[in-house]
């Protein structure tokens, strides 16, 4: 999921960095003081998740957790993922500093998309089965979209899209399943223990500041 330095063309890198900057700005604008600790903890979880490896075929892939981050944080997944990726690049040499923008976009944009796609199902009111399935789908879908976006980034730099994307998606199938289960387990856990964290992402916003106009 981390694209190394020197692979992508400068154009792709610049566009990626620009879009990431925009996403981070949106995330920070929606940020409220009470949410800072949960963003930090999820950022730390994301940072560590990349060390949990799933060996598949010729490559090795790792957990990403962007579905979970998107589900809980929405747009604020952008700053959380940016921080996590920056530290991974600095400390683990995963990805790279120049590709930070593109990598953040590839991981955080699917998180936000999944947030909008699946947030309807993640409420304390929904039935258990629906709740679980939505959370599972959210985890799967975020990884799937992320893989497609990595394929697309490579395509923009001249690699054939379909083979590259197929390979990446295929390699991430086990990760999708594991992330789906993890996301569902986490969401279920939070629903029982700290439901305000799940709803905190959007319910107070809809109630307290209707001018926010998200979704």
């Amino acid at each position, binding site marked *: 999921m981390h694209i190394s330095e020197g692979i992508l063309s400068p154009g792709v890198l610049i566009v990626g960095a620009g879009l990431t900057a925009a996403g981070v700005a949106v995330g920070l604008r929606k940020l409220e003081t009470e949410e800072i600790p949960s963003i930090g903890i999820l950022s730390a979880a994301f940072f560590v998740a990349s060390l949990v490896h799933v060996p598949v075929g010729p490559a090795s892939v790792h957990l990403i957790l962007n579905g979970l981050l998107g589900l809980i944080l929405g747009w604020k997944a952008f700053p959380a993922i940016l921080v996590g990726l920056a530290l991974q690049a600095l400390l*683990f040499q995963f990805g790279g500093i120049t590709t930070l923008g593109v990598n953040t976009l590839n991981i955080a944009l699917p998180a936000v998309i999944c947030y909008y796609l699946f947030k309807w199902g993640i409420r304390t009111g929904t039935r258990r089965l629906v709740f679980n399935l939505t959370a599972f789908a959210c985890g799967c879908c975020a990884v799937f979209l992320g893989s497609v976006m990595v394929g697309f980034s490579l395509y923009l730099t001249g690699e054939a899209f379909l083979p590259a994307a197929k390979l990446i998606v295929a390699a991430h199938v086990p990760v999708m399943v594991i992330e789906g289960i993890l996301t569902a387990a986490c969401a279920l856990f939070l629903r029982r223990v700290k439901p305000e964290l799940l709803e905190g992402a959007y319910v107070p916003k809809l109630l307290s500041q209707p001018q926010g106009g998200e979704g």
Partner: protein
Amino acid sequence: MCQNCYPSHRVVRGRPRFVCLLFAALWLVFSNVPALAHKVTIFAWVEGDTVHTQSKFSGGKKVKGAPVLVFDPEGNQLLEGKTDEKGEFSFKVQGKKTDLKVVLKASMGHMAEWKIPAEEITAVADVSRSSTAEVGVKAATEEAARLSTDVKASRELSVPTAVSLGRQELQDLIDESLDRKLAPIVNMLTDSLDRGPRVTEVIGGIGYIFGLVGMALYFANRRKKE
């Protein structure tokens, strides 16, 4: 995650604890998997007139069947090959004494490179040239010895060449045994190159994140007070 939820007084029923255990189990299972990082490395070294390369995902998993490209300093591609089952690929240096850049392109946007400075290759080129020269000289001296055993002048000539032959042979022997002796060190170097993230780095990263959270809270609170 679990620490986050721990202070909540609602953690009473058995289910959440079970979920926590599940996470712990998952973590243990996956942290034992040897492949630990998401990065590729390539390491190249010169042996005789051949350049050997070894490619790994860090954590030790071999990169199989991935293209390896060799470039000169101007960026012209000299040759291309694929890593074998052991993640290795070797090629012969063809005559030129330039720096070489070996680039590994693993799938899914992973790339690594290794530079071979010209000096290493120059040494190799010298050795191969002198060894061919030596063969020529050897043949010549043998012939000379066979044809004119009684000609003292040629004998006198062949004595200094014999000395220089000894030097060449010595050089070759030294090179050979050095290659053999250095092989473990080369292997050690490749291993140390692709070490996975260490615990200190992981904890350091988490510390950074918490520090950032602290800073963000500090500024948020200050703004609130004002």
